């Protein structure tokens, strides 16, 4: 016997323990989209005439965001939507997801830009990692640098990323565990806007939505799920925190929401304490991009390759 949607009695595709309700595909989708729109409205993520660039990897989260925003922006006559994919140069991994990104953008009629590590830094990630360890460090820092530079060159007012509730909460816990309070300011659906014209503000429409529900939305909307694991994925603090939070959620439903809301209550106080001093930014003396020190992390890493 099927479990039933609490609204219409159709077969349920999800039972949310944190609210004690089951949902069919149609009502889950409606409710999911309504929640994301609430986040966008309440946090003021977009203006009517924004040029928005979606960071599109071709994975399920960013593909779902691309689809969601393209449908929402159909009714925003003065807004513009583009996509940016970073090709790190990871054989048998990124090439698959780039194809998915191309297909999605073709179907949606969205202009896709592809920026590569090879073109920007002279080497692919595969080439960088021939004599290095900690691929996620190189990849993460260089990818963020390139996303900012390229989206700015594309004329974007906002860079929309598909960070979800799980991503956000993992970052919060990691920062606590490392004692890195000023990094907390980078969190939130609309992180602290840096007073620097080289910075493209980032927005996270899925920030209040659990990862599992973003994936379910992608599945229901028939998006191709890129499931190949990155060859450089490594055991990390993020994985430990992720597994801990998922286990807590299994045992004590709504843990994740409660923890995120608690952080949201703290965030204004953190901004007040750190924004004016320790979180201030300047321009890297080598590349001219934003940094909190004299030389940005990307330039520090590039010196080693």
């Amino acid at each position, binding site marked *: *016997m*099927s*479990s039933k949607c609490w609204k219409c009695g159709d*077969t*349920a*595709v*999800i*039972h949310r323990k944190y609210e004690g309700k*089951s949902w069919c*595909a149609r009502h889950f989708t409606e409710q999911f989209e309504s929640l994301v729109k609430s986040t966008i409205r309440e946090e003021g993520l977009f203006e009517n005439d924004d040029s928005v660039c979606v960071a599109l990897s071709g*994975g*399920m*989260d960013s593909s779902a965001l691309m689809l969601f925003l393209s449908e929402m922006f159909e009714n925003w006559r003065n807004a513009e939507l583009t996509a940016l994919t970073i090709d790190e140069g990871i054989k048998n991994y990124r090439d698959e997801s780039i194809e998915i990104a191309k297909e999605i953008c073709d179907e949606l009629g969205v202009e896709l830009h592809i920026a590569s590590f090879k073109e920007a830094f002279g080497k692919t990630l595969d080439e960088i990692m021939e004599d290095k360890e900690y691929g*996620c460090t190189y990849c*993460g820092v260089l990818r963020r640098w390139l996303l900012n530079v390229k989206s700015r060159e594309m004329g974007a007012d906002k860079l929309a990323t598909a960070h979800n509730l*799980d*991503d956000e909460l993992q970052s919060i816990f990691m920062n606590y565990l490392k004692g890195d309070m000023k990094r907390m300011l980078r969190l939130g659906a609309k992180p602290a806007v840096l007073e620097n014209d080289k910075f493209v503000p980032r927005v996270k429409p899925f920030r209040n939505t659990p*990862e*599992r529900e*973003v*994936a*379910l939305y992608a*599945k*229901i909307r028939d998006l191709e*799920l890129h*499931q190949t*694991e*990155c060859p450089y*994925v490594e055991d990390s603090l*993020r*994985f430990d925190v*992720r*597994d801990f939070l*998922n*286990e807590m*959620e*299994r045992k004590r439903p709504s843990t994740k929401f409660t923890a995120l809301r608690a952080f949201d209550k703290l965030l204004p106080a953190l901004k007040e304490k750190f924004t004016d001093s320790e979180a201030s930014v300047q321009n890297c003396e080598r590349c001219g991009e934003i940094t909190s020190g004299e030389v940005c992390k990307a330039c520090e890493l590039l010196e080693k390759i």
Partner: protein
Amino acid sequence: MSVEISWNNSKKSIDVEEGATVQDIFEEIDVNPETVIIELDERVVSLEEELNGDEDIRLINVVSGG
């Protein structure tokens, strides 16, 4: 009765009692249901779905590595 369950390149046949639900399957395998979408005979179902036996269950991993 039994069901076939596949996840992360693993496959296993599990005996289940009449009236068992998908939730009961997770008692037999080392997977947190918070980390997967569940397909039963190629349709997405919830943890509360009752099993009839002779079904194929596929768990789609949703946790990202980044």
